[in-house]
């Protein structure tokens, strides 16, 4: 019953997670990855909350990865990972890695992969409506409102050791949320972003482990 309630409360969702590998991957016990949002000069950067979620999830479970804090990494390499200066494509990696001190900073922190995440969660197709009224004896709402959410994200995985683009992981979750109200509104929210985060983190663990 609890399971049924959870499914209903979570709304209806369909998800798709895919990965494309262009080069062999693998990671040592002491090596880590760093997860950054893309530069807005290149693509729509993923929301901070999504980056934080993927970072948390990637560090948990049986295949957990070590994730170096993004802010500390950007600070240590300032100004070379700012939106206007960050490498836009893997072909720019040799130039980035050739800047004075950059290789030393990366080696000292044992960061093997940098993961660039872009994408967003959008709301669409809002339908229906709710009407609420309040009086001296109380209030009530009646009606039905529903809408769709689409969370679509892509993560490019760059190997800093070989200065190559090893491939990408994409996740897309579609869901419908609804709020029926008969006196009391009952929200059934499709948490598409949370599902996309979970799917991407899990796929990144598999992708990077090789």
């Amino acid at each position, binding site marked *: 019953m609890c399971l049924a309630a959870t499914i209903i409360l979570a709304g209806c969702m369909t998800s798709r997670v895919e990965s494309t590998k262009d080069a062999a991957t693998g990671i040592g016990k002491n090596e880590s990855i760093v997860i950054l949002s893309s530069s807005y000069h290149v693509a729509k950067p993923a929301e*901070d909350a999504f980056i934080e979620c993927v970072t948390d999830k990637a560090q948990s479970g049986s295949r957990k990865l070590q994730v170096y804090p993004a802010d500390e990494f950007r600070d240590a390499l*300032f*100004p070379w990972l700012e939106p206007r*200066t960050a490498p836009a494509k893997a072909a720019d990696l040799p130039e980035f890695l050739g*800047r*004075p001190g950059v290789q030393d*900073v990366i080696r000292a922190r044992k960061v093997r992969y940098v993961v660039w995440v872009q994408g967003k969660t959008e709301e669409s197709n809002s339908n229906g409506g709710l009407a609420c009224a309040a009086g001296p004896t109380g209030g009530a709402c009646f009606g039905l409102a529903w809408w769709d959410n689409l969370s679509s994200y892509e993560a490019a995985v760059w190997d800093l050791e070989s200065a190559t683009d090893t491939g990408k992981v994409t996740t897309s979750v579609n869901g419908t949320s609804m709020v029926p109200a008969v006196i009391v509104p009952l929200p059934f929210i499709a948490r598409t972003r949370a599902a996309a985060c979970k799917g991407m983190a899990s796929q990144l663990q598999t992708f990077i482990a090789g």
Partner: protein
Amino acid sequence: MAIAQSRPAVADQADPVNYGNDKLITKRQLSEICRISLAAFLLGACATSVQVDGSFPKPLMQPYPLAVGVRYPDSLVNFSHTEKAEREPEVAINLGAANVRMFDALFAGMFTEVVRLDADQARPAAANADLIIEPTLVELEIASPNKSGTDQYTVWLNYNLRLYRPDQTLLGDWKITGYGQHDGGSMGMGTEDAVNGAAMLAMRDVAAAIATRFSEAPGIGALLLPQAADPQPGSNNDIDSGNTENAAQTDE
């Protein structure tokens, strides 16, 4: 009877309330005061005041072999700005202390020697410097999610760096703009953090532009020429050998 006759005089003010020894406020006036106070409170509750808070890293680069005198004018050190867009709550932002922190960290990593000059300090103290820099923040704009049509707050900054020779003659004005965007809070909550985050990112953007494009600033190419050094291999630091006397250059 005297009381009954006197009531009409205050009838429209109804039931006076005595506050203090010599002040008489009617309920209507009290109600008006309460209404105005409530409106002021609600407006005040919506208004946001942001003291930009955060630290700036030193740039990872080989320093330019220059001794630089840095002069922060009062307008930079005390910079504040209030943004009031139509049908938007007021946002007041103070960047003064953050300006100083940013330029201190930036210049400490960019040059082999940095000397801070008093705002009104004249020529003699700068005699040992190769260059004097006087930054000013010319313009600041804030856009809320409603205004920008996104789910983010954005901050746009426009700085001018006045570059002087040690004898105080002007080498040129170097205009630098910076842009930062930060996820906004929902339902008006978290505005302070969002504006602070966007301002910090815009300032980092400015610092990154200054650090990576310094050799392109007016007059700097010629100044660096005797050193025959390009401190940032791999970057596009073309030597500016043209006539840049009193030039103004904008770096977007």
